[in-house]
Every structure is written in C-alpha cells, then in structure tokens.
C-alpha cells in the first residue's frame, strides 16, 4: 500500500502571502487592545495621569472600522516636540530636542507626515523611523518603510529605507549610512503623487484579491513613468508576481531579475528565487 503524498492543491496555500496592509492592521489592532486593557506601559500611564509623557497617541477623526488608527509619537524623556499643523490625514511635527520614534500609518494622495528639526526635514508615508536631535546634529534611522530626508530648505535630499541611517549637521556634509550590500543612496527621486496613487490603488486591489490585471497594469505604469521612484521595490515585486500568476513567465522573469539586481537583500528576493529558479542561475 503506497503512502499518500502531499496533495499539489496545497501548493497554492503554501505560497500564499499575507498582505502588508493586513499585517499592519493586526499589529496596530493588537496594540490598541493592549492599551484598552491596562496602562502597563509607561507612556500609556503618563497619558492617563496627564503628567510627564514618554509617548503620546495622536488621535485622528473617527474613521470606519477598517481604517488604520492614528499615528504614534514615542518620545523619550526630555524630548521636546509639538504638532505644527495637520496635513490631511498626516501632520507636521517639530522636534526641537531629544529623541522620538514615529510610527506612521499609511497615507494617501497629498497627505504627508513630516518631522522638522533645526537641521533636517523627514517626510514619510507609512513607515517607522527614529529621529534624534543630538547637539547641533540630527540623526535619522529607519526601521520600516521609506523616508526622504533633506535639509530644512529641501537641499541635499536622500532616500532612506529600512536599516538606513543618516546624520545631518550644519557644518559637515551629511554622511548617509547604508548596509554594505546595498548601493549608497543617491540623490532622492522627487516625490511623485500620481505614481503613489497608482501603487496604493494596486496594493488595495491585490489585498482584496480583485482585478489582478488592473493591479498589474498600474504597477507597470508606475515602473514605466517612475523607474527610480520610491515605490519601485513594491512595483517591481508585484509586477513580477502578478505576471507569474497570469502565466506570463517571460515578463515575470524580466521584472524578477530587475528586482533581485536592485534589492538583493530584500526578504521578497527569496520568494522570487523559489518560484523563478532561473533567477538563481
């Protein structure tokens, strides 16, 4: 009697990937449940006591059940900061002293989340980064997502991704720090609102499992018009995946090769190599 083998129908389940937006909602929702239960963490207790705050939850207007919650500013003791203005669903924050970590929910359209210090301006859409005012300099480090860092007047812009740090000082030129395996950040591409909408629309369709052909077309359009854009990594990856799932292996390989070449250390590279063995040759 032969042993039953693994059924090939389970391959589709094994390859299934949890959308980034779902992961973000789960994490944010778990944190919200924890905060509702008990002020166990110092910054929650400080808020309840309306006293010295180690962190503040920036409340946004009431939103539908599936919208992400507000942004977070996790400021260390001694940090001095204030919200300067609201920018749609984002805001502009001025950090004048100390260290703060920012957790920014995904934004759309012309919204932005900006942190200004005396030496630098940090502009992000949906990410997690740390800004430290250290004497006359500002140090920025990114743990998730992509941020654009420049001088307050917009000069010397650079794009930082997860794992990157940059120190901006008034006298010495900034020394961007990048992981050895990645190319040093060059002059950052300009912010491109139209392309951003295409990528976000496509990600929404992908997350909902709807209109894969339209999602693919949006990603390809972004790559055609903004090949060096801030969302090139997402666009290349999903263009490769959607082409593969549509049976267009030639395009999947082309997009996959471009992705692996530009982002060799991405966790998505392993996924692409597993499904496109030609990439490893």
């Amino acid at each position, binding site marked *: 009697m032969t*042993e*039953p*083998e*693994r*059924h090939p*129908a*389970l391959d*589709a*389940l*094994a*390859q*299934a*990937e*949890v*959308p980034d937006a*779902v*992961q973000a*909602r*789960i*994490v944010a*929702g*778990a*944190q*919200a*449940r*924890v905060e509702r*239960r008990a002020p*166990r*963490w*110092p*910054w929650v207790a400080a808020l309840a006591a309306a006293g010295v705050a180690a962190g503040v939850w920036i409340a946004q207007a009431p939103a539908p059940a599936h919208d992400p919650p507000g942004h977070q500013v*996790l400021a260390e003791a001694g940090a001095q900061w204030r919200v300067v203005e609201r920018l749609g669903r984002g805001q502009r924050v001025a950090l004048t002293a100390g260290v703060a970590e920012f957790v920014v929910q995904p934004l759309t359209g012309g919204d932005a989340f900006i942190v200004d210090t005396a030496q630098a301006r940090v502009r992000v859409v949906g990410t997690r980064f740390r800004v430290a005012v250290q004497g006359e300099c500002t140090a920025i480090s990114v743990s998730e997502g992509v941020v654009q860092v420049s001088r307050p007047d917009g000069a010397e812009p650079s794009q930082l991704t997860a794992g990157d740090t940059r120190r901006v000082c008034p006298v010495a030129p900034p020394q961007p720090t990048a992981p050895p395996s990645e190319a040093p950040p060059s002059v950052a591409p300009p912010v491109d609102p139209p392309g951003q909408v295409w990528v976000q629309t496509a990600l929404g369709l*992908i*997350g*909902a*499992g709807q209109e*894969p052909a339209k*999602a693919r077309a949006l990603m390809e359009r972004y790559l055609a018009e903004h090949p060096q854009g801030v969302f090139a990594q997402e666009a290349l990856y*999903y263009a490769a*995946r*959607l082409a593969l*799932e549509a049976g267009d292996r030639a395009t999947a390989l082309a997009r996959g090769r471009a992705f692996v070449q530009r982002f060799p250390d991405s966790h998505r590279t392993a996924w692409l190599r597993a499904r496109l063995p030609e990439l490893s040759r």
Partner: protein
Amino acid sequence: MVLPPEHFQRLQAGDEQAWARLFRAYAPRIYRWAVHRGVAAGNAEALAQEVLATAWRRIDRCRAPEALTAWLYQITRRQVANHRRKAWFRRVFVGEAPAATPAFTAEPEAAISARAVLARLPADLAEVLILRDVEGHTRDEAAALLGLRPGTVASRLRRARAAFEAAWTAREGEGP
C-alpha cells in the same frame, strides 16, 4: 523561531519595543494559522489581534522562550475553536453563510478551493496537514506545536492526506 533569553525577559517585563517586535514577527503567522483553519479573512485579522493581546496579558504563563511559538499556537487554536463554534451557531440558527473570499495577496482560485476542502476535514487531521504540508514544519516541529508525539503526527498526516485527497476528488465531482 526561538527568542533569545534576554528578549523573552524583556517581554515578561512588559518592554514595549520587545512586544512591538513580537507582534510584527507573529502577526502573519497567526493570521495564516487562522485562515487555513477556515476563519474568514476579516475575522482572522480580529482573531490574530486578540491572540497577540492575550499573549501580552498572560505572558507569565509561557514557560520558556523555546515554548513561545507552541504557546501562541495553542492560544490561536482555542480562539479558532471558539470562532468556529459561534460560526456554526450563526450558520445553523441564523442562516448566515460565510463567503469564500481571498485572504492573501493575489490569491488564486485553487487556494480558496483548497481552504474550503481543508475546512471539511476533522480538526485533528486538518491541523497536522496544515502544519506539515502547508506551513512546511518538520514532524518534530509540528509535534511540539500540537503537544503530540512525533509518531502520532506521522500517523495523523497519513490519514489527513488520504482524507484531503478524497474530499478534493469529491469536490471536483460536485461541478461548478
């Protein structure tokens, strides 16, 4: 995934950053566990949130860093079982039928069908099949997650694969 002892101690101390890292590390895995066990996508998100929040409240009940993943899996199992009982009640007494919707990025129809077939299997067989043939755990890893002996996992896997094959064939016979 085994946490370093110092990280586990930080969890027990309620360190916010340590918990944030744990939430990010386990969120997709818990979501997958729930979805593969038949929980609809939207409910699986809420279920995963509750599992993580429960872990935060009861971390003192986790014996050791190496037991963390299995402990989280057991919490997820209980949450899934509660959810399925409530779903059964809604289906039988209220007539509410869950929709078969994609739960993952660009999920093909085959994946949705495979999940529907998995949902028909007995829970003990479905769990082993998911851990071994979908999530890719070894026999010993699956045994640790389920709290079973490796030999029991092996025998259940044989039965589970046969049951899945039979259910899949029967599904094809049902037509579109």
